[in-house]
């Protein structure tokens, strides 16, 4: 196979999964710069494994799993040292402000405030709790899919999900109400 054919073949396999993988990268890292790095790193790795990739029946879940493992490795390897304010594009939920305008302004500010509170509440969860609640309740992954990606058994995922939701409800509404 020529190089060009090989590249086309690669693209044909991976491109249909790009949006989902990009979202997964965001859910894992919580910011744009690292999400882009992780996405890029996944493609480099996957391209190197093209011979395996062509034979895989569900490349989407394989790619998700590889991304998760890269993420786990990366976080063992790197720590960050930054001392400056960066732009909002690096935030989870960045662009929240852009959502304003379409809706009635009061509702909108409420929504923004609620999302910011959710952001902050998610920040208080442990990383495995946060990831599982985001994958399941936000991204709509099934328990089995989360097991395939993370290697954590469904039973453990379920109990983490249970605890994560209970904790979020507590943080968001200590007195029993949201507002």
């Amino acid at each position, binding site marked *: 196979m020529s190089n060009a054919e090989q590249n086309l073949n690669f693209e044909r396999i991976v491109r249909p999964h790009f949006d989902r993988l*990009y979202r997964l990268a965001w859910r894992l890292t919580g910011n744009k710069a690292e999400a882009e790095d992780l996405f890029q790193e996944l493609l480099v790795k996957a391209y190197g494994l093209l011979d395996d990739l062509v034979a895989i029946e569900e490349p989407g879940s394989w790619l998700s799993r590889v991304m998760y493992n890269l993420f786990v490795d990366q976080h063992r390897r790197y720590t960050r040292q930054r001392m400056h304010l960066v732009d909002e594009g690096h935030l989870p939920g960045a662009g929240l402000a852009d959502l304003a305008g379409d809706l009635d302004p009061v509702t909108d500010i409420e929504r923004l405030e609620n999302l910011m509170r959710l952001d902050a509440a998610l920040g208080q969860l442990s990383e495995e709790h946060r990831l599982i609640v985001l994958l399941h309740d936000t991204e709509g992954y099934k328990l089995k899919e989360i097991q395939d990606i993370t290697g954590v058994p469904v039973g453990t995922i379920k109990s983490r999900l249970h605890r994560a939701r209970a904790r979020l409800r507590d943080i968001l509404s200590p007195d029993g109400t949201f507002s």
Partner: protein
Amino acid sequence: MHCKDLTEKLDDYMDGGLDQATAEAIASHAGTCETCRAVIERARELRGLLGDYPVPQAQAGFYDRALVRATHKGGRRQRNRWLLSGFGSAVAAGLAAWVIFGLLPDVPQTPDALASIPGVTIALEEERTINLVFASATALDGATLTLSLPDGIELAGFPGQREITWTTSLKAGRNLLPLTLVALTPTGGELIAHLQHNERNRTFRLRVDVS
């Protein structure tokens, strides 16, 4: 159906994982029990919020560029410049924690928000990145930010400094200040960020616990 049973089955109920009879028993109990009705309502609200929690789409052209870099012979990805890779031997302490401080002036602070100081827990002698987010309705040029650290907590790269002040500009929207903290003693305490812009001051508190 008792309240306790309902609480135990709440997740399965929300996930639609119960048989019809049990689901109906829950619905009928909630019809008569105000407490449980509120519990279900909160669970629904949380689910709604989570389902609505956005991520931005990839920028136009990002996928194409990423593909080219991946398939280009000898192509090595470029780390984003602000991600330093020189800490190969350091122990990364997992994901950053996020703490959001709102500066939106027209939004009345709820009593809850005022009463609860956000908190993070860090491990002793391990670096942990805490992302402070300042959400500002307007751009603040030339603001002064002062950080005061509790005893026993240091900012990585600033050994021995209890207070650090610098000038910065905030954009309208959300501004991220990542701080890498290290706890040298198990005491913990309050980290205070003081933001001054012209005549206006805001003080933000973050409780830092050490595990």
